[in-house]
């Protein structure tokens, strides 16, 4: 013993009163030797525990674990550490314990040296951890459920909005069909009005009556044009496009006649025809009249009333052009960009004239039906020019 240090208790006493329970068992778990600390914890005397088996001191759950984990591990590894069991005291209480064991061979016998530690505090701490863990798992479950509910709600909303979109499309389709039907049915009463006007016109009328009859005639004609625009619109939108019947056309004469005829409808305004080039052309005369009358109507409405409106027919090698020009305010670029879409109206004009915004759309559709196109340019200096470019002849696809 080094000088100056106190002498510790004997080894025997140190064993008996060690800070942990100490056991020696044979390989079947029978207790051969044990210390006072262990006996004290369980409330047994040394004699009561000698020759009893270690597993018999455990609760049933611990005994199963001892059989399925402890015993094979000890066989395979020769030692085992930090296994937690519940031990049953003499008075029936259970105490949580941690066990370490090591297998030793003395001569022909195998012995297990076991150290036992009471683990009350650790046990409580672990219980807290386990409770916290199950609380966390519970929360996770709730949060997962909430997320699932959210995803389902989202899916429902998505379904809802696509249903709404489909419903809106249905409504739009219905409205367009409705427009076609109503326009068609309006023609009959209008033709009655028009016919009756003619009948009345044959009799003797005073000046006021004659003026009124003139207004009836103009209003009826305007209503008829409106209806045929609406019908063309619905045909273009729903019926796969406007149909045309192409026939040989004396283009310049056709345009000159039309300009003369339409000029009468705009008293006080100048409508000038122009012709360039020569050659055969094909087109649907009715549709092209409609096209030109729409463009000329626009030019009269939006153009400078003091300036002439010029209508030019121009025959080129492959195509022919119909150009309608007027002076006046420039059409802004943003308006120009959407000019040929339905329901778009020129700037600064409210409900004057016949426009409900279908005219240029129909012009475009007629041009397309002729496999051509329409374009518009507008500048302050040169005024506004609409140019319809159509092929002179459409070749019938060769049959093979």
């Amino acid at each position, binding site marked *: 013993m080094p000088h100056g240090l106190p002498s510790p208790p004997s080894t025997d006493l140190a064993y008996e009163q060690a800070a942990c329970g100490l056991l020696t068992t044979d390989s079947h778990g029978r207790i051969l030797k044990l210390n006072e600390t262990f006996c004290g914890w369980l409330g047994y005397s040394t004699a009561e525990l000698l020759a009893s088996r270690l597993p018999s001191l455990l609760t049933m*759950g611990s005994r199963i674990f001892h059989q399925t984990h402890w015993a094979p591990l000890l066989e395979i590894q020769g030692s085992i550490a930090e*296994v937690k069991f519940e031990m049953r005291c003499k008075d029936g209480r259970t105490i949580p314990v941690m066990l370490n064991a090591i297998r030793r061979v003395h001569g022909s016998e195998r012995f297990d040296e076991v150290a036992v530690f009471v683990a009350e505090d650790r046990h409580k701490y*672990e219980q807290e951890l386990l409770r916290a863990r199950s609380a966390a798992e519970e929360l996770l479950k709730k949060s997962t459920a909430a997320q699932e509910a959210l995803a389902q709600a989202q899916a429902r909303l998505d379904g809802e909005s696509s249903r709404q979109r489909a419903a809106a499309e249905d409504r739009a389709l219905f409205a367009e069909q409705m427009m076609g039907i109503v326009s068609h049915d309006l023609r009959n009463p209008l033709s009655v009005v028009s016919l009756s006007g003619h009948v009345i016109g044959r009799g003797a009328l005073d000046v006021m009556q004659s003026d009124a009859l003139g207004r009836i005639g103009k209003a009826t004609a305007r209503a008829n044009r409106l209806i045929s625009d609406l019908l063309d619109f619905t045909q273009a939108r729903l019926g796969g496009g406007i149909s045309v019947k192409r026939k040989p056309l004396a283009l310049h004469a056709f345009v000159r006649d039309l300009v003369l005829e339409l000029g009468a409808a705009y008293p006080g305004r100048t409508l000038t025809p122009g012709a360039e080039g020569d050659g055969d052309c094909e087109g649907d005369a009715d549709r092209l009249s409609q096209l030109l009358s729409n463009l000329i109507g626009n030019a009269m409405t939006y153009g400078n009333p003091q300036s002439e409106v010029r209508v030019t027919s121009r025959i080129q090698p492959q195509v022919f052009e119909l150009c309608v020009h007027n002076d006046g305010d420039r059409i802004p670029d943003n308006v120009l960009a959407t000019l040929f879409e339905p329901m778009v109206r020129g700037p600064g004009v409210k409900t004057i004239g016949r426009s409900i915004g279908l005219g240029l759309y129909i012009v475009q559709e007629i041009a397309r039906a002729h496999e051509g196109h329409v374009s518009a340019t507008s500048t302050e200096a040169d005024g506004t020019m609409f140019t319809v470019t159509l092929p002179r002849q459409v070749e019938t696809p060769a049959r093979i």
Partner: protein
Amino acid sequence: MDIRKRNNVNVTGHGLSTMVFAHGFGCDQSMWRLLAPAFADRYRVVTFDLVGSGMSDLGAYDVAKYDSLHGYAEDLNEIVDEFGTGKIIFVGHSVSAMIGMLADIKAPGRFAAHMMVGPSAAYINDGDYVGGFEREDIESLLRTLESNYLGWSSNMAPAIMGAPDQPELGVELTNSFCRTDPDIAKHFAKVTFTSDHRADVPKLQTPALVLQCSDDLIAPRSVGEFFEKTLPNGTITVIDNIGHCPHLSVPGASAKAMQVFLETAGL
């Protein structure tokens, strides 16, 4: 699907017939290290880990599939088909004895013989049948499992999964043979100890040896007697052993009893 990886299948030994060893609840195929070598000179020896145990692919653990022993039985038949040659002799410890029995009943003819080490057809007492446990004992086991797996953490998984090129990782782990994911261990414990396959035992026509320990908490003598009465083609051999793992504690006596059975059966 890679069955070798899923079940960490290992093949050793040489012979015309194949012995397939399946471990029980708790540890892994290392349990066979003292017994299987006794057969390696005459048989092809296949050992593996049940999915969820040892170095099996924990990612393959499908709670629904392994909610009964039938899921494990399907795996066993796949292992036998892929790794077995010649006659197949199945050695199942504890719960795996029942897994082998279910696999056989699913596809009769696959196995030439069963050797059941400490089997139990049902663990919970029921009327005259003494399985050895009450329902609350199983609850108590689940609590014990829970507190013993506290030290297991998910970042140990790669080491447990075994990186063959880094064996030093495995060395540091104590108790590694019995470690696995705590949730899987609990589920497997519940499935094992609440299983009841008493009604299936009479369906096993294949010759079967029941290796019964003289003193076994998990599979008491009463259970061995049940098998003796119920197995159509069974042989019971009682080994003098205290505990549930005679293949570890008395490997010599266990091997001897098995060899006697195999000779009698002409295998």
